[in-house]
């Protein structure tokens, strides 16, 4: 997974270089701080993805328990 993210980061940097002027050859004339804020946004979105997974996982267990009970009664 880390290997994949190495490829992704290369793609991300190329994309930023192509679309914005944040990463010129001399970064004194660029805006590397904006790149970092972009990374913060990626991290926060990703964090909510993990939280969502956690929530769904818990609900799933509850559902299974509820479905199990009526079956047990009929058999």
């Amino acid at each position: 997974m880390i290997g994949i993210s190495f490829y992704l980061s290369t793609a991300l940097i190329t994309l930023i270089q192509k679309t914005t002027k944040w990463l010129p050859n001399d970064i004194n004339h660029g805006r590397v701080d904006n790149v970092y804020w972009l990374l913060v946004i990626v991290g926060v979105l990703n964090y909510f993805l993990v939280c969502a997974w956690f929530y769904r996982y818990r609900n799933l267990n509850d559902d299974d328990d509820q479905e199990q009970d009526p079956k047990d009664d009929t058999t």
Partner: protein
Amino acid sequence: MCRFFNRAALKTEDDSVNNNWRLCSVQEVEDFKAVFRVLPLLLAIIFVSTPMVTQTSLIILQALVTDRGLGPHFKIPAGSLQVIVIITACIVILMNNCLVYPMYQKLAHKPLTPLQKVGIGHVFIILSMAISAIVEAKRLKTVTNGHSMSVLWLVPPLVIVGIGETFQFPANIELFYREFPESLSSTATSLPQW
């Protein structure tokens, strides 16, 4: 959510029991469900490592344009700044296992779950990116004033990303090892580093 996988274990009329491609055992189906359920978490590792990896390369660029002199004769090589992450990780991983986790267990009367540790790691890594952004904004300001900033300003984000890694990666391995079926336990330990 994953109940439709149960149909793989459903016996139809023209199935022979010996044909593994037509019919799965219930155990196989449950194992596959366990793997399927952690897929979002695997994707989450990619997207939390991407900022970390990007920071690795950007920090070298930043270090090249800062004042890397320490003392009169010594200059820190820009590429070796990354060692700080590893050193921090070594120290914090010891502290976590000997101090932080036992202390939490004593105070809260329950251990931290692997997922909670992963969450803490994510928070630290995001925090490190924010600090990097602030440091870079400060550096750009010093450049316009005609000064060169000390390289030591780049140390705090690296230390915090090291702390984040120590929370996140061992916990990820722990989590996958716990969630994956027994036959895939070695895959589970290698997947986060993949």
